[in-house]
């Protein structure tokens, strides 16, 4: 039992606990807060996989930005304080289907092993990612900026109140 194993099991336990709480809690805000634990635990998992830059991005984007934006979404819309459960039949049918999917995938991945090579992905991780992004992946990188601009303008236009409609009602 090495330190890496212990860290992995603790992080995996935290992540799965957050997910299970998301399913079982009734208050909507509590669900989102439970998911923050999952996101931070996943960032820890990235560190054990020697992907430090992705881990930092995960903390910034997921447990920072996306969770806050979802909390805003909850608070800007009226909702029942207690989330009503779906019909029992639907839950059972969905659970059975997902269980089947889980078993099929588990059978496929349980013996998957490619052996281990000695690679030093964690040495100067951020620098290497930066060099790759600006040399080999420069076109996808620039396209991503266009995508973010489109998403920004699109979401502003979608969420903006329609002034013409309001004046027509008057």
């Amino acid at each position: 039992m090495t330190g890496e194993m212990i860290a992995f099991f603790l992080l995996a336990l935290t992540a799965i606990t957050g997910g299970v709480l998301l399913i079982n809690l009734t208050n909507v805000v509590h669900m989102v807060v439970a998911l923050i634990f999952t996101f931070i635990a996943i960032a820890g998992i990235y560190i054990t996989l020697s992907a430090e830059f992705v881990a930092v991005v995960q903390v910034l984007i997921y447990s920072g930005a996306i969770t806050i934006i979802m909390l805003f979404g909850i608070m800007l819309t009226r909702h029942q304080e207690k989330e009503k459960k779906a019909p029992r039949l639907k839950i059972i049918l969905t659970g059975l289907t997902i269980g089947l999917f889980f078993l099929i995938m588990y059978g496929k991945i349980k013996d998957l092993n490619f052996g281990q090579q000695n690679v030093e992905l964690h040495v100067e991780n951020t620098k290497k990612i930066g060099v790759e992004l600006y040399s080999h992946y420069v076109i996808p990188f620039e396209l991503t900026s266009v995508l973010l601009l489109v998403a920004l303008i699109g979401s502003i236009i979608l969420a903006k109140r329609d002034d013409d409609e309001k004046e027509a009602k008057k």
Partner: protein
Amino acid sequence: MSAVPLPAYLMLALILFCIGLFGALTKRNAVIVLISIELMLNAVNINLVAFAKYSLNPGLTGQIFSLFTITVAAAEAAVGLAILIALYRNRKTVNVDEMDTMKR
């Protein structure tokens, strides 16, 4: 040096994906459905980063791809929430089973 084997990471990703899928299919609040989808995308990212380290050709490609996935997921969350707010303004509901205008 006995590191954590690859199937352990894949198992974790599979469990998180199944939880996210279950949440997305059974929850009624649309915000919770959106965040369950984020959880599924996160599970996929774990797979990408795990394969970047433990595959036949280890390298940075998986990590860079997961960065792109995170960007697209953030854009998706923003647009999804904007649609949700516009829908809430018109219909006064955020429950997915009451959003059935296109079914009638």
